[in-house]
């Protein structure tokens, strides 16, 4: 409290305490568009109209780095080659649970070409014991097969690999457990000798740290709203189901890894990361370096999906090896390591019970979930049950179950595909029981204004109209079905979002931010914002991102990047533009207030001067560069519009003789605030749909029950949807203005399809065959078993 006056002074300096009021567009054009009054700092730029009245923002601009990516010129971390660079290779545990008695690196050290060997002293990722003293021994206890133990750096990748094979690790094997159900039994081998917790990353994930732990069961974490006992008493109908989902690995195409170059006074790290800032922070902390002496660069990165935050074991070990060898070190994981050691989506085992009135009103939701995040936490999946619908009472119990497997990490909408799979199928089942249309029921229990519009779009779609309301009506072995499900995600704003905009005397414009482009296309969006502000095409803007030398940017996880960063960029651009006009106005013989920037020109409102090209006007600058920096201003009204989402419709064909499910068409109706670049947004939604289908039908991390090793740590038996599994996807973007920032952008990465498509497929399968499949992946084995149980297969 004593610092309050200083903070206030700083805020005042930033213009944050002097407020103004403005009318902002809110709602969905064509449906609910209206104006709402918002209070905002006086330094905020004028309110933008809706997209149709903007020139560049809200319209598709070609991906900024498209030509680099299509030509192979884009340089990813795994492509970085530095003079004298060494290649590092991990030595990993080959058993799932053991004390490490000794690590003999002598033979590796002597191997030709080896320059350094590092023995891991602290493993990042797994849950940490509340009482660290419970883990005794010189080396970290092995809690999963694939846990890094040491690493070797050598002059060639082959030498590193060969030397790594020479490191001798002696284990004292401990009893292990890799099965969720067995791990829950009393007397199961304990993964940890006492309570242990794992915190989430910038992408979410992690679990609560204040819960009980009994054996391997970390939980429950209980959340209650009113009394569900009363709620079920008040119910006219009750539906319940047991749902099981598997562990999925992120399987980003570029594995985790870094190139670390430790020089006196500066550690430079190229990292395949979703957060340059998070890598810098972790390395500075680990090595006790000032932040100013750590630089992290991410020019391009080959996918993360939530697993790539912080330096992690590869980052820390590569930096340590670079320090000791005096040479740059590249440490990229191989595919097997990527599956085993750097995260996954936890499994779930959910018992969900819902009570409702005859009119559909929900009287009670009761969810008990168990799931495993390996030797980490983060298997909670109550988000959809808690946040999607209105209800009279709610009771959720989430439990993490430790097993001897690699720790989970955030994965695209953590917990939500699992929770939605159960919730939205149960809601569908409720609709059947109440003899209501699925959309009518949702209209009754969901008052979110945008999803209501989205359901209306679905209701009017040809795909939905083609749905036969009678389940299992098709004759013949291949049956068609249509189903829908809704998604929900949350508006998280990261205040660590800033940018600098520069105007050069030659008329060139650039924007700088440490933010990384993980494939969502933030570079393009930044160019569009400058284009809008300066009235020049986006192709004339230089975008410099992915380097901690630039103003700090947000970590890209939890759908935060666009909504957090773009207002700061717009503010910086607007301020730079004002400075620019003030700078050139005297030379143009008018006042800055008289000038506007449009269509590549500087124009006079009053007609005092003839329009002049932007470049020619810039030449009149008295200094060679004008710049402005801005940081994120808080949302104008943080009490409003906290969630967003969408409605997905799937059309499936179920081959009831083979138990195969094929998704033929998908209609995906989603909102993300102001869509900044529709084509890029559609790309992300396509991605969410496809990842979700892959998860629902194919992917499964398989651990051998007797030895605790993953049997499919590859990309053929770990099965990911390919070209022939891709449905025709029709994306309808819903412009949904919420009046929260100078760009009014929102996010899409999480809500896009991945949350709801699994449940939509489940509901479509039910519509096709009249049997509910409550387990993923829906392989032929699973579907045939469900059909047999449902009595539709002899």
């Amino acid at each position, binding site marked *: 409290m004593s610092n309050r006056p200083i903070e206030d002074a700083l805020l005042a300096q930033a213009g944050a305490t002097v407020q103004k009021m403005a009318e902002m567009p809110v709602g969905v054009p064509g449906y609910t568009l209206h104006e709402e009054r918002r209070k905002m700092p006086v330094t905020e730029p004028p309110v933008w109209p809706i997209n149709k009245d903007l020139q560049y923002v809200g319209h598709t601009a070609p991906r900024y780095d498209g030509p680099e990516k299509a030509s192979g010129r884009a340089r990813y971390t795994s492509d970085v080659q530095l003079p004298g660079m060494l290649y590092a290779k991990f030595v990993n545990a080959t058993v799932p649970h053991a004390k490490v008695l000794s690590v003999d690196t002598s033979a590796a050290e002597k191997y030709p070409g080896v320059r350094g060997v590092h023995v891991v002293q602290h493993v990042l990722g797994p849950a940490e014991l509340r009482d660290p003293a419970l883990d005794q021994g010189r080396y970290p206890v092995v809690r999963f097969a694939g846990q890094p133990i040491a690493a070797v750096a050598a002059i060639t990748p082959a030498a590193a690999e060969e030397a790594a094979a020479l490191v001798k690790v002696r284990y004292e094997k401990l009893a292990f457990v890799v099965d969720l159900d067995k791990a829950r039994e009393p007397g199961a081998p304990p993964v940890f000798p006492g309570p242990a917790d794992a915190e989430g990353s910038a992408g979410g994930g992690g679990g609560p740290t204040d819960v009980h732990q009994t054996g391997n069961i970390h939980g429950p974490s209980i959340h209650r709203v009113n009394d569900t006992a009363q709620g079920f008493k008040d119910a006219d109908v009750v539906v319940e189901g047991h749902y099981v989902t598997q562990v999925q690995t992120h399987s980003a195409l570029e594995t985790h890894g870094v190139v670390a170059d430790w020089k006196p006074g500066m550690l430079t790290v190229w990292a395949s990361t979703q957060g340059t800032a998070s890598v810098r922070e972790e390395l500075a902390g680990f090595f006790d370096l000032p932040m100013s002496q750590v630089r992290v660069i991410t020019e391009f990165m080959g996918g993360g999906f939530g697993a790539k935050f912080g330096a992690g074991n590869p980052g820390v070990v590569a930096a340590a090896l670079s320090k000791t060898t005096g040479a740059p070190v590249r440490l990229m994981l191989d595919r097997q390591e990527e599956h085993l050691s750097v995260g996954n989506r936890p499994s779930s085992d959910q018992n969900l019970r819902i009570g409702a009135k005859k009119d559909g009103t929900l009287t009670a939701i009761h969810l008990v979930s168990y799931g495993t995040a390996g030797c980490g936490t983060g298997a909670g999946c109550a988000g959809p049950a808690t946040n999607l619908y209105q209800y009279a009472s709610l009771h959720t119990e989430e439990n993490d179950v430790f097993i001897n497997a690699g720790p989970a990490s955030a994965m695209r909408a953590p917990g939500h595909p699992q929770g939605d799979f159960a919730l939205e199928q149960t809601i569908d089942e409720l609709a059947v029981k109440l003899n209501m249309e699925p959309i009518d029921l949702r209209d009754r229990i969901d008052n979110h204004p945008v999803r209501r519009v989205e359901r209306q779009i679905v209701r009017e779609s040809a795909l939905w109209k083609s749905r036969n309301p009678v389940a299992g009506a098709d004759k013949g072995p291949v049956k068609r079905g249509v189903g829908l499900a809704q998604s929900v995600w949350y508006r998280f704003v990261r205040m660590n979002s800033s940018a600098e905009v520069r105007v050069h005397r030659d008329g060139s414009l650039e924007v700088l931010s440490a933010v990384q482009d993980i494939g969502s296309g933030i570079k393009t969006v930044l160019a569009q914002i400058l284009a809008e502000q300066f009235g020049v095409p986006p192709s004339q803007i230089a975008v410099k991102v992915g380097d901690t030398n630039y103003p700090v940017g947000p970590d890209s996880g939890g759908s935060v990047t666009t909504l957090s960063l773009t207002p700061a960029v717009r503010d910086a651009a607007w301020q730079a533009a004002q400075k620019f006009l003030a700078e050139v106005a005297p030379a143009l013989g008018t006042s800055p207030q008289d000038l506007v920037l449009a269509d590549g020109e500087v124009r006079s409102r009053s007609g005092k001067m003839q329009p002049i090209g932007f470049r020619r006007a810039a030449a009149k600058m008295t200094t060679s560069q004008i710049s402005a920096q801005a940081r994120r201003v808080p949302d104008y009204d943080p009490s409003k519009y906290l969630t967003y989402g969408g409605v997905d419709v799937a059309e499936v064909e179920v081959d009831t003789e083979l138990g195969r499910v094929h998704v033929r068409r998908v209609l995906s109706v989603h909102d993300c605030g102001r869509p900044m670049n529709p084509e890029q947004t559609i790309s992300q939604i396509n991605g969410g749909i496809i990842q979700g289908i892959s998860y629902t039908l194919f992917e499964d991390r398989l651990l051998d*029950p007797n030895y605790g090793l993953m049997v499919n740590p590859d990309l053929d038996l770990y099965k990911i949807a*390919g070209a022939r599994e891709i449905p025709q996807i029709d994306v309808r973007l819903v412009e949904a203005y919420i009046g929260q920032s100078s760009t009014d952008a929102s996010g899409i990465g999480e809500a896009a399809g991945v949350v709801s498509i699994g449940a939509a497929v489940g509901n479509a399968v039910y519509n096709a065959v009249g049997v509910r499949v409550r387990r993923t992946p829906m392989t032929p*084995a699973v579907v045939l078993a469900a059909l047999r149980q449902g009595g539709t297969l002899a």
Partner: protein
Amino acid sequence: MNRFVLADCTTVDAALSQLKDGAVVKAGGVDLLDRMKDGIEEPPKLVNIRNVAELRGIRETPQGLTLGPLATLAEISEHPSIRAHYQILSDACGHAATPHIRNMATVGGNLLQRVQCWYYRSAEFTCIRKGKDLCFAFDGLNQYHAIMEYDGCPSVAPSSAAVALLGLGASVDLTSAKRGKRTVGIREFYVVPDANPTKFTVIEPDELLTAIVIPRPAPGTRSAYQKYGEKESFDWAIADAGVVLEMDGNICRRAVITMGAASPVVRRAAQAEAALAGKPITEETARAAGRLSIEGAQPLSKNAYKLDLFPVAVYRTVLFAAGLRDRDPSAAG
């Protein structure tokens, strides 16, 4: 991958002279490099036959067809005459692996590829096929494993080309420097694991597969192959069927039905074949053949679902071969 000497050969004789002291033949190299990268094989020398011109090519003869073992899966699947007269073979080669692999992988290599059992393919599991006395699949994860005719090892036959070639009654020529050439039928080419678990085929270390000989099908023969996976884009078969029908009008004179993903080596489903012989091909006879294709099956703990799949794979492929049904759009490859 271990270091090795590469003996690049330009003639069969030159290659044969190199087949000693643990040297291993490399053609397309797809499966061999896979095993070497997985660390389950470390040969000191690779005998590269990729540049042996006499092992290339597809030749039509009055007696039938001779495939050089270096003919790639892509070449075979796209060969007009094979498409016309040996559809089962073009189907099988055209739906194996991925398009790019089919450009590199040779038919000889496809026949000689090792089983895909994940325990066999992992260096961490020293299984019976690698000279130890354990099988990890019986008590472990066996959802993709055999449902019949296994003894010590329930891995499944991985080669789709073999399923087709068995259907066509093909044989292979095996040549050694010392003993000259011998000819072995496709079924006899493969070794059931209980006899000598570390052997997969009868080929000896000093022998080279020098030709694949396919007899000309009888007039009126129709054939087809289909495989089913969990996915459609590149997946290993969870069920597959090769069907060769010698037709006399609408009566099936003789049928050959072959399967790969059911057992450790490719098999003919004799009872299913008998169910079609002398009968017209109809929905009913095809279904009957399908049912009989799994006679005697004993599924493992996690693969009983294959008992549902094979009858359907056989039935649909019989109708496809007979021209009574299109290629199944949900077939893999």
